[in-house]
């Protein structure tokens, strides 16, 4: 079904390899994500994170590719599986881990939790926990950028399962008709929770096979390849910024763990898991950089630096107390309060 030619796919295919500094940045960003998410996992196991949490281990190349390519004032909108998408915008790791742990130092001072990370000062415009809801909101931010002629682009991440909800459809049509500067990025990790996406979707490629329904080009890319994701991001951001309207990208990837904290992911065939783990974006990229002449010491130094960063973030989060109870009923309104009467 999916056609794979068009200006955007051509631009992606013909993109020159990024320079070494950028590529090291991609590697660094992926490692930061990986190590932070692994630490989050450890913290669950110690029951220091309550409630639920959704890790994106294995999907780092998507977030990193965009994170490195985006302009500082661009917007991102992501989902409950959005720790990485938040981090790559330059958001405090302490703030993220602190929020997962429900501490005062958390990005949202404990009021949002792991599914709602946001830092507007970094353009990280929020993580949304109801499937599809952020897609029209992201379009609204793009509309605002268009109206203000700010040159900002709105980037919206979502999963394969999200392509079957109404808000997906309304958002894509709306963005196309208004020619908005937005990039919709579907991370197809093959599952919606415990159900294989193919069991509940009428087309093989849930996003790419639907692009034509919005007059858009079908773009299907390897979401485990940081270079591809970076080139994709550059091309789609440039398209949006130049006034050429929205893009819909489908990035094929895989989550290494279960859907959420409670899920061991046993419904997935062992061979499938093994095959995808063999394509783990981080070791693959590390090898590629080495092959391109980056020395191991440089890469090791990045690993060490990110590991230390995660340690420091965890330490700071642990040292922070629970949020003061006085904030529980504040900030419903812009006046800081929650009063509904006089």
């Amino acid at each position, binding site marked *: 079904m999916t056609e794979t030619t068009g200006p955007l796919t051509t631009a992606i295919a013909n993109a020159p390899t990024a320079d070494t500094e950028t590529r090291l940045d991609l590697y660094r960003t992926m490692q930061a994500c990986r190590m932070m998410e692994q630490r989050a996992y450890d913290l669950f196991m110690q029951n220091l994170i309550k409630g639920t949490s959704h890790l994106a281990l294995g999907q780092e190349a998507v977030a990193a590719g965009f994170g490195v390519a985006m302009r500082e004032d661009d917007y991102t909108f992501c989902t409950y599986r959005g720790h990485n998408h938040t981090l790559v915008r330059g958001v405090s790791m302490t703030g993220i881990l602190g929020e997962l742990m429900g501490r005062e130092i958390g990005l949202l001072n404990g009021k949002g939790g792991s599914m*709602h990370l946001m830092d507007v000062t970094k353009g990280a415009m929020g993580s949304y926990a109801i499937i599809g809801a952020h897609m029209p909101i992201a379009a609204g*931010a793009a509309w605002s950028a268009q109206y203000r002629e700010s040159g900002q682009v709105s980037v919206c991440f979502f999963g394969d399962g999200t392509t079957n909800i109404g808000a997906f459809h309304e958002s894509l049509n709306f963005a196309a008709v208004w020619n908005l500067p937005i990039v919709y990025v579907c991370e197809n990790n093959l599952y919606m929770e415990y159900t294989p996406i193919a069991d509940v979707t009428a087309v093989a490629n849930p996003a790419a096979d639907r692009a034509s329904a919005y007059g858009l080009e079908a773009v299907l890319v390897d979401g485990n390849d940081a270079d591809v994701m970076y080139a994709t991001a550059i091309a789609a951001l440039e398209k949006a910024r130049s006034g050429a309207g929205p893009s819909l990208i489908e990035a094929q990837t895989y989550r290494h763990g279960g859907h959420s904290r409670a899920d061991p992911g046993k419904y997935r065939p062992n061979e499938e898991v093994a095959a995808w783990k063999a394509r783990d974006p981080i070791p693959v990229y590390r090898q590629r950089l080495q092959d391109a002449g980056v020395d191991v010491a440089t890469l090791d130094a990045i690993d060490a630096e990110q590991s230390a960063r995660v340690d420091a973030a965890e330490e700071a989060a642990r040292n922070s107390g629970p949020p003061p109870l006085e904030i529980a009923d504040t900030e419903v309104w*812009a006046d800081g309060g929650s009063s509904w009467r006089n």
Partner: protein
Amino acid sequence: MAQLSYREAVSAAIAQEMRRDPTVVVLGEDIAAAGGVFKTTEGLLAEFGPLRVRDTPISEQAIIGAAAGAAMTGLKPIAEIMFSDFFAVCWDLVVNQIAKTRFMTNGQCSFPLVIRSANGGGARFGAQHSQSVENWAMAVPGLKVVAPSSPADIKGLLAAAIQDPDPVLFFEHKLLYGTKGEVPEGDHVDQLGKAKVLRAGNDVTIVALAAMVPRAMKAADILQTEHGVSAEVVDVRSLVPLDTTTIFASVSKTNRLVTVEENPRLCGWGAEVSSLVAEELFWDLEGPIVRVTTPHIPLPSADALEDAVMPSVERIVASVLKLAD
């Protein structure tokens, strides 16, 4: 003062705020060239152009989502949901996203937006185009809820809603669009969260909203002239914030309360007002709190049936008299 219809007051308020603030933008179905199906946005496209007044597809989730995203990033959108019954197709954006995001992020962002909608029954439109859903909104923390009863209130409260930094659901009553009244000329901005005593009285307080306000006023007339009962009529105007001060002051004086709601019985705003009074003003009460509502049923379409179930002047009179017994 100028004579404006309730309908004209809507576009007057929007135009006033659009002139004042270039970040105010308008979106909705058929609101630009067509001026809205209720003709409440007429003239806006001509004055403010297609970048500020935009037609949308039939995609209420996109409309409300777009308003939300724009509000988070510097604009002040006014979105129209054509009939308030249609809030049900975009309720998630309203209640789970717009209402909660500021709180969840401990104040990182604001939603300075207004969602206007034609609310209420009496126009023989049937059960899916006639609901009073202001109580749906009132039940959700994070939404301000306004429902004016006169052209002057439309202008002043809509302007206030547009200027307000929080999300406001603004319910226009479709039965009132044709009514006329004096409206302050020039820039006019009222205040959210203030009820109004429209008629002073001593024996009983009647609290009403939107299209029920003129009915309550007529009932008060009849009570006075035919039954010698002096009713004080309070127009709630704003459900959130709720002006309990004005309502309580009236009940403290009359010692009796009747609420008149158009919404179906269960969990209406009248229940909330009743429970507040029963909790905080109990010792002032000299009799039961009476609620007049539409029965807990969908609205029928035929005129005879619709008139039979919505609160009527007669029913209000009878309910007050029973209480005054």
